[in-house]
C-alpha cells in the first residue's frame, strides 16, 4: 500500500496543513490523515493527528440492507399487533380519553417500538457502586424481549467500566475529596432551597468560583447546578435577535437548544472545517442580515473542546485566529476536555498552549473530570458581572448543593497540586498515557477508530444495527461494560461503540479490556480497517 503526499493545502488564509492520503491497493483513498506541525506556520506547537476512515462500501450496503429488513419486520409486527395476533406491550391511552387527539403520532414511535426495543438492554443499565474503573451492575433479565425488566436481586461485580465519564478517576467514595464532601454534608446539609440572587448564595459558592477562575486562568467564573442548563440558559443571555450564531455541525443538544432559545440566526458550518467557518464569517460580515443587509450586532462561534461522538478535538488555534481577524466572539464548551487534555489538565486551551484570555466565553462541566455535577462559565469580569444579574439560572434556579461544591473545590485543588500532593499531576499524565496506549492497540488490531490521537473518548465503528446490541451483550458477558450508540445520536449507518478512558484504569485493566475487545471483534467481525500497520509509520517525514 502506498502513501501519497498531497499538495500543501491552504486553510483559510492562515494555516498550512499537510493532508496525507492513505490509499489501498487499487489506488482509492480510504483515509485522510491531517497533520499540522511546526513546519507550517507555527500555529500548532505539536502534531495534530485525526483520522476518520471512510466506511467500506460493502459494509455500508449491508448496513442499509439491515435497516431495510428491520423496517419491513417492523411493519409486519405493527400489523400483527394491530390485529391482536401478537400481544401488545405498548402502553395505551385511558378509556376516558380515547377520543382526545392522540398524544403521539404512530410514526414517531415506529423506531422506538421496532428497532430500539430489540436492543434496549444495552442502555440504562443500573449500577450499585461507585462509577469508578470497576463497577457493580444490577443484574436484570427480560422475560418478554426487553419490554419489561425483572431484577434478579444479584449483582454483577467487578465489571470494567469503559462507559462512565470518569477521566481523572475522581469518582471515588474514599480519599481526600470524599472526606471533605462528607464533612460538608453533615455541616451544611444537602439542599439550599433558594436561588443565587435570593438567599442561596453561600460563601462556599463564591470560594469555588474564585478557584475555578484561577484554575482556568480567567478573570472570573460562575457555576451553575446543571451542565445542560448552563448552555441552554446562558447563551440566550448573551445573544438575541439581530445576532448571528455559527455553530458546529456536531454540537451537543444543549448548545443547539441554547442557540434556538436565544432567537438569533443560526448557521451551521461543517464539522471542524475551518474553510467552511471562514467562508461563513466573510459572507456574514459582507452581506449582513438576510434581506435588510443591516450589519450583524455580533457574531458568536459555538464550538466544543472534544466532540464526544467523534472523539475529535476542535482546531482551536485556527478558530482563535479566525475570530481575531473577523472580530467574532468565541464560546468554547469544554464539557469533555476540561481536566482531560493538556499537561496541567486545564483543558483544550492548555493542550494547544494558548492564552485563555483569547476565548471570550469558556464553558465547561464538573460532571466528567471532577466527579461532581454542574457547569461553569469563565471569562472576563464584565461578562461575569452581566451573567450574575442576567442569567436565567441565577434568578430562577436553585443554587448548587454544598457537598457537590466541596467535591469540586477538593478535586480542583488536587489537580492544581494545591493539596500538597502530586496526585493530580500523576492522574493527568496517566490519562494521557492510557489514551495513547489504548488507541494505538485498537488501531493495531484493525478496528476503525475515529478521532484525535489524544482524545480520551474513543469511538469504534460497528456500523450494522445487529452488531450494536451484540457487541454490548458480548462485552457484558465477559465482564466489560461499554457504551454503544446508534441512530439518532449518530448518522444512521455510523453506529459505534464508545470507550471512555480513565486515569483510574490500570494497564492490566486496559490489557484485559483490549484482549476481550479483540476476541469479540473477531467473533462479530468488526475489524473493518483496511490498513493493518500503525498510523505512526506513515508519518515518517
Amino acid at each position, binding site marked *: 500500500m502506498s502513501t501519497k503526499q498531497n499538495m500543501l493545502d491552504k486553510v483559510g488564509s492562515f494555516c498550512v496543513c499537510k493532508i496525507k492520503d492513505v490509499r489501498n491497493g487499487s489506488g482509492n483513498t480510504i483515509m485522510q490523515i491531517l497533520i499540522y506541525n511546526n513546519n507550517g506556520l507555527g500555529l500548532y506547537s505539536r502534531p495534530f493527528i485525526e483520522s476518520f476512515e471512510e466506511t467500506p462500501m460493502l459494509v455500508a450496503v449491508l448496513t442499509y440492507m439491515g435497516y431495510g429488513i428491520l423496517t419491513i419486520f417492523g411493519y409486519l409486527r405493527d400489523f400483527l399487533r394491530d390485529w391482536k395476533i401478537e400481544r401488545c406491550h405498548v*402502553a395505551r*391511552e*385511558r378509556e376516558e380519553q380515547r377520543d382526545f*387527539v*392522540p*398524544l403521539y403520532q404512530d410514526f414517531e414511535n415506529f423506531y422506538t417500538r421496532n428497532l430500539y426495543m430489540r436492543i434496549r438492554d444495552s*442502555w*440504562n443499565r443500573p*449500577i*450499585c457502586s*461507585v462509577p469508578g474503573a470497576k463497577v457493580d451492575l444490577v443484574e436484570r433479565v427480560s422475560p418478554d424481549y426487553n419490554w419489561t425488566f425483572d431484577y434478579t436481586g444479584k449483582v454483577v461485580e467487578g465489571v470494567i467500566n469503559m*462507559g*462512565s*465519564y470518569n477521566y481523572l478517576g*475522581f*469518582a*471515588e*467514595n474514599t480519599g481526600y475529596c470524599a472526606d471533605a464532601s*462528607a464533612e460538608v*454534608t*453533615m*455541616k*451544611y*446539609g*444537602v*439542599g*439550599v*432551597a*433558594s*436561588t443565587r*440572587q*435570593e438567599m*442561596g*448564595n*453561600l*460563601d462556599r459558592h463564591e470560594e469555588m468560583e474564585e478557584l475555578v477562575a484561577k484554575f482556568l486562568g480567567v478573570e472570573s467564573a460562575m457555576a451553575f447546578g*446543571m451542565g*445542560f*442548563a448552563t448552555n441552554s440558559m446562558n447563551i440566550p443571555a448573551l445573544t438575541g435577535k439581530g445576532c448571528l450564531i455559527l455553530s458546529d455541525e456536531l454540537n451537543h443538544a444543549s448548545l443547539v437548544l441554547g442557540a434556538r*432559545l436565544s432567537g438569533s440566526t443560526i448557521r451551521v458550518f461543517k464539522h471542524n472545517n475551518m474553510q467552511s467557518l471562514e467562508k461563513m464569517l*466573510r459572507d456574514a460580515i*459582507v452581506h449582513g442580515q438576510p434581506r435588510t443587509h443591516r450589519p450583524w450586532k*455580533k457574531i458568536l462561534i459555538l464550538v466544543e473542546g472534544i466532540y464526544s461522538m467523534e472523539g475529535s478535538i476542535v482546531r482551536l488555534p485556527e478558530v482563535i485566529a479566525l475570530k481575531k481577524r473577523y472580530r467574532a466572539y468565541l464560546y468554547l464548551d469544554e464539557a469533555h476536555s476540561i481536566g482531560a487534555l493538556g499537561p496541567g489538565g486545564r483543558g483544550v486551551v492548555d493542550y494547544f498552549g494558548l492564552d485563555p484570555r483569547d476565548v471570550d*466565553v469558556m464553558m465547561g462541566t*464538573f*460532571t466528567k473530570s*471532577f*466527579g461532581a*455535577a454542574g457547569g461553569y462559565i469563565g471569562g472576563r469580569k*464584565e*461578562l461575569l*458581572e452581566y*451573567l*450574575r444579574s442576567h442569567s*436565567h439560572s441565577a434568578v*430562577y434556579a436553585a443554587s448548587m*448543593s454544598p*457537598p*457537590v461544591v466541596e467535591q469540586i473545590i477538593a478535586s480542583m485543588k488536587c489537580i492544581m497540586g494545591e493539596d500538597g500532593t502530586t496526585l493530580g499531576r500523576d492522574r493527568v499524565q496517566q490519562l494521557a498515557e492510557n489514551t495513547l496506549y489504548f488507541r494505538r492497540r485498537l488501531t493495531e488490531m484493525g478496528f476503525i477508530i475515529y478521532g484525535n490521537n489524544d482524545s480520551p473518548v474513543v469511538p469504534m465503528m460497528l456500523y450494522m444495527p445487529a452488531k450494536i446490541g451484540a457487541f454490548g451483550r458480548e462485552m457484558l458477558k465477559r465482564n466489560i*461494560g461499554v457504551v454503544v450508540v446508534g441512530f439518532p445520536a449518530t448518522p444512521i449507518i455510523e453506529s459505534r461503540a464508545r470507550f471512555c478512558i480513565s486515569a483510574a484504569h490500570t494497564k492490566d485493566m486496559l490489557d484485559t479490556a483490549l484482549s476481550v475487545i479483540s476476541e469479540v471483534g473477531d467473533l462479530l467481525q468488526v475489524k473493518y480497517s483496511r490498513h493493518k500497520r500503525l498510523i505512526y509509520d506513515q508519518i515518517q517525514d
Partner: protein
Amino acid sequence: MGSPQVVRVGNNTSARLILNTWPLVCAPAYHLVLEGILILWIIRLLFSKTYKLQERSDLTEKEKEDLIEEWQPEPLVPPMSKDHPSLNYDIVTGPPSHKIIVNGKECINFASFNFLGFLDNERVKQKALTSLRRYGVGTCGPRGFYGTFDVHLELEDRLAKFMKTEEAIIYSYGFATIASAIPAYSKRGDIVFVDEAACFSIQKGLQASRSFIKYFKHNDMEDLERLLKEQEIEDQRNPRKARVTRRFIIVEGLYINTADVCPLPDLVKLKYKYKVRIFLEESMSFGVLGEHGRGVTEHFGVNIDDIDLISANMENAVASIGGFCCGRSFVIDHQRLSGQGYCFSASLPPMLAAAAIEALNIMEEDPEIFAILREKCKHVHKALQESPGVKVIGEAYAPALHLQLERSSGSRDTDVKMLRSIVDYCLERQIALTLARYLDKEERFLPPPSIRVVVTIEQTEEDIEKAASCIREAALAILK
C-alpha cells in the same frame, strides 16, 4: 408515411444514408420546423451566460476586505452600572437553615423555601452521608450510559407510590423539569393554553416547544373557556388539521408569583368538555397542600388520573435538588427518550436522591406536619395583615407569600429601592427576608415588585411575632 418496403441495399453507404433519413424526410413539415426551432433554442441556451438567482455579489475583493475591516460588533455584554440591584448578592455563611447567617448577621430565616424544615434534618443528612460513602458524589454519566443508580430507581418508585400514579421520572435540576417535559409532548403546530402568571421555567419550556401559545387571565375560567370556544370554532373550519393538533392546558398548583391556587375541579371539567390535556406544575404545592402532602389534587379531592402530567421540583418542600414528573406510564415513559434534560444530561447525584427518599419517608411517617405548616401559614398571613403601606398577596394556606406596596410610586426602580430598604431594615434586626427576583426584560407578564415571605415549620410563635412587628416598623419608617 408509406409502409416499410423491403429494399435490397448493398454496401452502398449513400443508399444506406438515404434509407436512414427516409422517415425524416417523410415527416410532416410542421414537425420538422418545430424540432428545428427546439434544437436552435437548445444551442442558444447552451451558449448563453448563466447567472445565479440568489444575492448576486457585485462587490470586488477590495470592497469586501473594506467591509470586513470596517465592521465593528457590539461588545459581548453591555456595560453594567456598579450599583445595579442584582449585582451584589447577599452572602450566607454556614448552612442555610432556620437560623441563617446573612452578611455576617445571624437571622431567622423567612426567605428559603424550606417549608418542612428538612434542610437541617439529621436523618436526611445521615442518609446522604451513607450514600456518599457508598457511591461517591457524582454519577459521571447520563441515565442511558451507566448513570442509572439503584437509588434513582428507588426514588422514582417511591415518588410514584407516594403520588399514587403509575410511574415517575427524575431530573437532576428543578428548572429543567417542566422546561424539558413540555417540548417532549407539545410540538410545532400544537396549541397550549397557559395561565398568565406561569413561572419562568414554563415560559422557557413553551419557547422551546415552538407551539402556539394562548395566555388566559390569571385563574379566570371564563377567559379560558372563551379561548377554548374560539379554538373549537377554528377546528370546525378545518377538521383535518384539528384531528392532529394536540391541545394542552398548563397551570400551576400554587403559583409562585401570586401565591394562590388554581381552580382544579373547574379545569378538569373544561378538560373533558373541550378534550384538552392538563399539565400541572406543583413545585410550591407538593409537600404542602393536601392531607398527606400530595399536592393540589389531594387538596381538592380530584382523581389523580384526570391530570395527565404532574411536574414538581424537589428543591422546596423536599429540600434536596432536582425535580420529577409523575403520571401514567403512557405519558411519562415518553420522556425517557424525548426529554432533553433527561437524555442529554448527567443524572442526579445519588446522595441527593437518597436525601429525597429520606424526606419522603418522613413525610409518609408523619402526616401531621402538613397540618402544622398550614396553621403557621394562617398565623403569618394574619399577622402580616396589619402592616401599613404593604399588602399581603396570597392565600392564607400558601407558605410563600408576597408583600407588595399598596400604592406604587409609578416607577419600578423606586418601588424596588423602597422594598429593598425594608428588607435591609429587617436584616439589621435579624429577620432574613428577600426581594422576589425576576428578569425584567425576559418575563412575559412581569409581576409587580414584592418581598417574599416564606413560612417554614420550624418558625415559632415568637419568631412570627418578631417578624411581623419588624415588618410593620419598617413599613412605617420607610413608607411614611
